[in-house]
């Protein structure tokens, strides 16, 4: 089954790429863009039928590799 994960920078952690994107959008006349945060998206195919088990495996993967918990949060969606 396919499990989807979104990894984002924690609140308060500087996101220079997000800032650059925001400024570019503002420059393109999207003046109402106040903030942009950039993140990562993963689709993980797990050989597991039980959704709970699959998600728990992916949770472990997030903690060990996919996210660095010093600066990032993750969400299994």
């Amino acid at each position, binding site marked *: 089954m396919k499990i989807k994960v979104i990894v984002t920078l924690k609140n308060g*952690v*500087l996101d*220079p*790429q997000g800032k*650059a994107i925001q400024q570019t959008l503002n420059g393109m006349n999207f003046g109402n863009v106040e903030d942009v945060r950039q993140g990562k998206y993963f689709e993980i195919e797990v050989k597991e039928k039980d959704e709970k088990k699959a998600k728990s495996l992916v949770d472990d993967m997030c903690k060990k*590799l*996919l996210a*660095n918990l*010093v*600066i990032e949060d993750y969400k299994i969606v």
Partner: protein
Amino acid sequence: MRSSVIIFPGSNCDRDMDVALKKFGFINQMVWHNDQSIPKSDLIVLPGGFSYGDYLRCGSIASKSKIIRSVIDFANSGGLVLGICNGFQILTETGLLNGILQQNKFLNFICSNVYVKVKDKQNKYFKDLKKDILELHIAHNEGNYFCSDDELKSLEDNSQIAVTYCGVDGKENEITNPNGAIKNIAGIFNKNKNVLGMMPHPERMIDKYLSGEDGSLFFKNILDNFK
């Protein structure tokens, strides 16, 4: 003194490091990342470069290499482990060092000479070093050191900050901070100070006619402290 330089796919400062170590009398060996064990060593170096193309996060894939288990065991038994640039990023991803190296504040790849201040000499790398300020070289896109407030306090309380970016006069401020690193941090130790990670490249400063010799001081000092 015996040393080992670990080569990852995408390492590109491994041979420079080999040349530097041998120049000052280290007996150096190159070790492939897929090896299980490390030959008998007094110093292990994780060199600079772009291991695994910086995929996912800089150093994150290399930090799960086969050889890393041996590096962690070696570090935990008190052995000297030095990570330069990408090597520093790998060390933070293994958990041997706190924090993380984020993208430079102004999104630019920086390649330039910098001055760094040696903040602590109670360790095997900088003990009795004649200079307090070294001119070294940096070349990175992700050198913006970041850690939590609690980690920063603990780094400061245990004198784990090794080197900071400064001016030629030793001033540490926003102007002398090339990449936005918290507290101008260019390098840190683990708690026992046997593991050192730093962004500047001492191996690029070993020839007075080409670059400068402050890197030579660094390597010679490690050897002197080993004797």
